[in-house]
């Protein structure tokens, strides 16, 4: 009697830690006494991971995208336009560096980054195969898959467009060159014409039956000499390896001509004629070579340009000809992240939420119903102590459960924790408090566990489907996406994913963390408001 009086004189202690400790201990005993209750609590999330981890939802649309155009050419703009026009993507950021874009990805503002490399168009024109780098946030398997598929399509489309252009241009060049060459053949004929005309008298002579007079032969030779002068001998190698004209005259004419002249008097006409004939042949050959040279110059002038183009093409890699632009993928965070890696944090968040909310049904509504809470109310223990004590236990329990889940994830799903464990713990702690407090608020408002279940369903069902763990949020109608912004599970999932999978430090998750703290403040406020000692 003395003791209790003494306690009473202490007046109401708002937060009695010893009593809180007793509440925590009692709940711990209650929880562990009934292991059957623990089994579904622990098995449920594993089933969730297995069953829902691989579920694919609807095709996401309007995935927020950042473009990093290191090249601002027309071709680069074409590609950007192509991405913008697609229903799959919404380009909300065009930034100048990849780092900047990665920051946006980290903050969750974009899900996809498209990097167009520097000198993109130039390189494409030079026939150097170009890669467009795509960085996809793997956190949402469906979004990631859709993004990749979409971008592969766009890039391949652009690539084949360029490829077709190139082949067309090649065909055009070849055509031009062929045409020029054909023209050149004709000009060759044309060039040859006058010379043949000039040679005609000799031909006439050679083919005539009658004997020519000296005078006639002399005249013929004269015309022949003029040909000699016109056409110097040339080396047959007209072009060197650099395709430059090699005009190297070799033995010449004058002697031959004089020889011919001397012959006219001393040799028989017949032999002279044969000499003339030989000389004419030589001249003709020389002439034809000269014509070739002239025509080559002409040819060079006309055909060189298309040939040059063809030449460039021939130097092309066949691959670059067929796929001038390729899709290249870069990991957003580390390497080898799988869909499951990104689902796990959401599952954990969801599980904490479900477990905490549902668990509180027994805790307040149930204890209210079976009178054991009344028993606590009969003691000089403040509401704050009861609330915080109960919250502490369940928060602790959920934290332990989440830890267990993470361990399970590591063992069974080979998850690698990238970020700080302490930070993960902090997020879980805050989030578990919110969930437990929410459950407690509902539990305080209802009279029975059955009522509680109905109420809790109202809150936990949308969380389950809007958490983004089971179905990608981006595949959902706009109003649902907005609704998701009011669910703590959204933020907890983001924060957990950020730290666990992306390896974020606290700076990157300030926003979700702040929202979570706000939720906690609001929910706690509600709990203190609705938690009534009055057991009417």
């Amino acid at each position, binding site marked *: 009697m003395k003791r209790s*009086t003494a*306690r009473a004189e202490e007046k109401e202690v708002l937060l009695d830690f010893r009593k809180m400790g007793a509440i925590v201990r009692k709940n711990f005993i209650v929880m562990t006494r009934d292991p059957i209750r623990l089994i579904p609590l622990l098995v449920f999330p594993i089933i969730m991971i297995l069953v829902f981890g691989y579920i694919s939802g609807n095709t996401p649309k309007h995935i927020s995208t950042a473009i990093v155009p290191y090249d601002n050419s027309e071709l680069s703009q074409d590609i950007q336009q192509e991405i913008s026009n697609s229903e799959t993507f919404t380009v909300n950021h065009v930034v100048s560096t990849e780092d900047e874009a990665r920051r946006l990805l980290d903050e969750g503002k974009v899900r996809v980054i498209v990097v167009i490399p520097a000198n993109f168009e130039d390189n494409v024109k030079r026939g150097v195969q170009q890669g467009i780098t795509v960085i996809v946030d793997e956190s949402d398997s469906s979004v990631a898959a859709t993004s990749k598929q979409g971008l592969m399509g766009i890039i391949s489309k652009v690539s084949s467009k360029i490829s077709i252009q190139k082949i067309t241009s090649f065909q055009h060049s070849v055509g031009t060159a062929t045409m020029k060459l054909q023209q050149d053949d004709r000009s060759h004929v044309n060039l040859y014409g006058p010379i043949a005309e000039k040679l005609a008298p000799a031909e006439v002579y050679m083919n005539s039956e009658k004997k020519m007079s000296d005078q006639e032969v002399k005249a013929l030779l004269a015309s022949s000499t003029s040909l000699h002068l016109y056409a110097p001998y040339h080396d047959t190698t007209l072009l060197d390896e650099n395709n430059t004209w090699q005009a190297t005259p070799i033995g010449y004419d004058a002697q031959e001509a004089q020889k011919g002249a001397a012959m006219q008097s001393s040799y028989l006409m017949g032999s002279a004629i044969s000499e003339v004939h030989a000389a004419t042949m030589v001249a003709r050959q020389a002439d034809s070579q000269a014509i070739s040279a002239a025509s080559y110059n002409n040819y060079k002038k006309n055909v060189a340009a298309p040939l040059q183009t063809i030449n460039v093409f021939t130097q092309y890699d066949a691959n670059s000809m067929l796929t001038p632009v390729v899709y290249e993928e870069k990991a957003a965070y580390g390497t080898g992240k799988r869909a499951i890696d990104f689902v796990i944090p959401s599952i954990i968040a969801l599980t904490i939420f479900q477990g905490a909310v549902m668990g509180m049904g027994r805790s307040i509504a149930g204890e209210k119903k079976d009178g054991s809470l*009344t*028993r606590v109310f009969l003691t*000089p223990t403040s509401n704050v102590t009861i609330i915080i004590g109960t919250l502490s236990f369940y928060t602790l329990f959920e934290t332990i459960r989440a830890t267990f889940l993470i361990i399970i994830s590591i063992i069974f799903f080979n998850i690698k924790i990238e970020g700080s464990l302490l930070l993960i713990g902090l997020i879980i702690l805050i989030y578990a408090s919110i969930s437990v407090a929410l459950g407690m608020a509902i539990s305080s408002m209802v009279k029975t566990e059955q009522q509680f279940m109905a109420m809790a369903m109202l809150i936990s069902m949308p969380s389950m489907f809007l958490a983004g763990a089971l179905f990608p949020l981006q595949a959902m109608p706009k109003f649902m996406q907005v609704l998701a912004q009011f669910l703590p599970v959204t933020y907890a999932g983001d924060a957990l994913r950020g730290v666990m999978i992306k390896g974020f430090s606290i700076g990157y998750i300030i926003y979700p963390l702040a929202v979570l703290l706000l939720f906690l403040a609001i929910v706690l406020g509600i709990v203190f408001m609705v938690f009534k*000692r009055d057991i009417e």
Partner: protein
Amino acid sequence: MKNIIEMKDLVKKFGPFTAVDKINISVKEGEIFGFLGPNGAGKTTTISMLTTLIKPTSGKALVAGHDIVTEGVDVRSVIGVVPQQFSLFQELTAEENLVYIGRLYGMSRPAIKERSDYLLKIMSLYDARNRIAGVFSGGMKQRLSLAAGIMSKPKILFMDEPTTGLDPQSRIAIRELTKKLNSEGMTIVYTTHDMDEAEKICDRITIMDKGKVVADGTSEELKHKIASHHEIEIEFEELSADILAALKKLPFVVSLSHQGDIINLTVKERKNVFFMLSSFLNKRNQKVVEIKFKEPSLEDVFIQLTKKDLRDG
């Protein structure tokens, strides 16, 4: 003896329903105070108010000098409660339950150990202290509940129908313990259906009905209150309608009922009634098998006051 509990125009309404209607009851320090009434009379509601579980709609009550509304913590510090419903943790063992309750009263660990050992022993639960309360029998549960109620050595113990549903042995055990605690100086507010029980252990009794106090006093006082109405049972060898009509006309007869050859008379006064009845019957030459006065029980008092059987509610 001074009053340890005082109620002044205490009212509790649940919506339009008035569960407790302006009651003024005092409980003296050191007594066993009996709270009687049919179900729905407002006993439990009154106890809930006194134990600070619910707030009165209007009126005032002091428990050990503390206002039940403004000094809830002080009230809770000096009271112990054995609720109507077993309200301990089914998953906890007997000892763990007591330890938990002790902690919530802010008791130190050694004090808890000492007190719980003592209580488990006197409640004959010591051997079962490590068993889960959920598997206890009704009697064990009730003894444990009592132990939890007095864990903090309260000045006042509220017992809300502690023996309801128990076997006779357990009832006796609870009653004995109640008496023992009272003899150690604990004031006890005892709610019960059982008139016999109330008569046996309560120093004073208040009868409530429909939220109002209909009578209070010691069991003798209460019986005396309805002593203005006495019942006499007469068994005739053969009852005739004439006699019945004549009896009804007698000035001292308040009411009359009959069953077969037996009639029940309610009379205003006991004085001379026997003589007057004898002469009346003699005059008419009636053969009577038996004629007897019925001693009023608390139950009769109750029925008389509430016009209904206790257990009907």
